[in-house]
């Protein structure tokens, strides 16, 4: 697959840089759209139409003083932002972003790691992602930070269950029309995208969202993913009104920026995953058969449009819903979302077997 280690290193650096740029402009997009929804203007001074605002933010944050509380645990305090950021970046490794390009006879694949355990890798990485915030809250040695950290751990554990169960639905649906015809499900994200090729009745794409159980799993996935990345209305972890700033209260300068970055990168990754699992990834009826480099470019743009759609949805939700109360959050996660996701999974299993029998 890879000619040399160097190609691999360059590829991963490019991927990380792309994710970083995506994060920078996602903050601008969020601020602009939020401002529009609240009848404000939003950032418009730095550069044409505020387009250089992320750059200005980054420079500003870099020149801020890096403060460490006197009673903080030095090692863990420094380690926490790193532990938060790394999982957010390495999630992107398994997401298929488009078809392969061919440059000068060299295949350049848009899926960094096309591995058979793609989905398990994803669950492993998201479960590691809990540590950053939790440890930040503990290491700051501040009761508000601590509360934020404890909340984050409780919230992420609760919603990880529903999250893990709903991502099994696409795995089982892959068994339903696996392109290789062996009738097996797959944990490989590329195979999942391939299984969503083609159309029903010639115009409805065979995306997993258009299956009898897939749409329900899709909705549960979106809710659980929002809670996983601690976005509004599930952002109790940093609830400004009650916890000052939650886990990030004591952090400043680039360390604070890293937490910010981790959250937004995770949001981008979750959007990409929602597109991959339920909206056919880079596939779009009629466009996926275009070959060559143009086809690859179009597939990448289709994926990008889907990701941006989910990002917009997330910003829209943030502008619409108030923060949920903590006990309700737990109630909702355990008593509503978990049973629904379990039922969806069971129904999908029955559906796949029944279809197989017919």
């Amino acid at each position: 697959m890879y000619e040399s280690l160097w190609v691999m290193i360059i590829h991963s650096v490019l991927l990380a840089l792309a994710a970083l740029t995506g994060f920078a402009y996602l903050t601008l997009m969020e601020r602009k759209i939020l401002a529009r929804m609240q009848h404000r203007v939003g950032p418009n001074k730095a550069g044409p139409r505020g387009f250089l605002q992320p750059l200005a933010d980054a420079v500003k944050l870099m020149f801020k003083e890096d403060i460490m509380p006197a009673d903080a645990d030095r090692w863990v305090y420094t380690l926490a932002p790193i532990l938060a950021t790394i999982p957010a970046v390495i999630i992107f490794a398994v997401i298929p972003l488009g078809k392969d390009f061919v440059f000068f006879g060299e295949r350049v694949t848009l899926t960094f790691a096309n591995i058979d355990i793609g989905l398990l890798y994803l669950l492993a990485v998201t479960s590691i992602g809990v540590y950053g915030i939790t440890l930040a809250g503990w290491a700051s040695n501040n009761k508000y930070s601590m509360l934020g950290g404890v909340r984050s751990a409780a919230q992420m554990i609760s919603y990880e269950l529903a999250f893990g169960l709903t991502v099994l639905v696409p795995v089982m649906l892959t068994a339903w029309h696996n392109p290789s015809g062996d009738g097996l499900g797959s944990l490989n994200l590329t195979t999942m995208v391939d299984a969503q090729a083609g159309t029903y009745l010639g115009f409805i794409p065979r995306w997993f969202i258009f299956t009898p159980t897939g749409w329900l799993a899709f909705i549960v996935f979106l809710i659980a993913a929002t809670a996983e990345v601690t976005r509004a209305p599930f952002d109790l972890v940093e609830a400004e009104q009650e916890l000052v700033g939650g886990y990030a209260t004591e952090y400043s300068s680039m360390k604070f920026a890293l937490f910010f970055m981790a959250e937004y990168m995770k949001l981008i990754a979750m959007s990409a995953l929602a597109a991959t699992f339920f909206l056919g990834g880079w596939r779009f009826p009629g466009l996926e058969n275009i070959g060559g480099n143009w086809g690859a470019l179009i597939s990448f743009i289709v994926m990008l449009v889907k990701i941006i759609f989910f990002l917009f949805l997330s910003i829209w939700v943030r502008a619409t819903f108030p923060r949920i109360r903590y006990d309700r959050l737990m109630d909702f996660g355990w008593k509503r979302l978990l049973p629904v996701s379990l039922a969806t999974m069971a129904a999908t299993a029955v559906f796949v077997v029944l279809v197989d029998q017919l």
Partner: protein
Amino acid sequence: METVIFITTAIVAVGAALGMVLSSNAVHSALFLILNFCAVAVMYLLLRAPFMAAVQVTVYAGAIMVLFLFVIMLLGAEKADLGSEPIGWQKPVGVLLGAVLLAEGIYVAYKGIKLVDAPITAALGIGQPTTLSAVLFSKYLLPFEVISILLLVAIVGTVVLTRRTVKLKEAE
């Protein structure tokens, strides 16, 4: 290449294990243990068992250690004073058992015992998720189901044990 990765991972694993035992702060110990689990996961990868590696990280480093940390943080037990050992014979027995294990390890390394007598080619695909699940859902289906029921019993047990009785509320 594989040797280099193995040696690095082995050093990290042993170092993390030592750090876990020796650090006085419980949260640091927990973090070292997570590092150790991750190192072991890399070793599974080197043994061509990607499924095991992913499960190791998800279950041990992810789920179980989060609960550990959660408990340590909630109880504020990170600076717990160990004091004197309550069980007196524990330490010498521990040293003895450790010595036996070490001797065993050295013996195996010295003799080069083949632990499993099977062709290597058969073992290459064994770590793949498809191979594992095929065996798990056919040959070992009964144990698999029994374990799932066992876990269910444990969940029900926890719910029953932590449930507040209605009487308490009436008393208020």
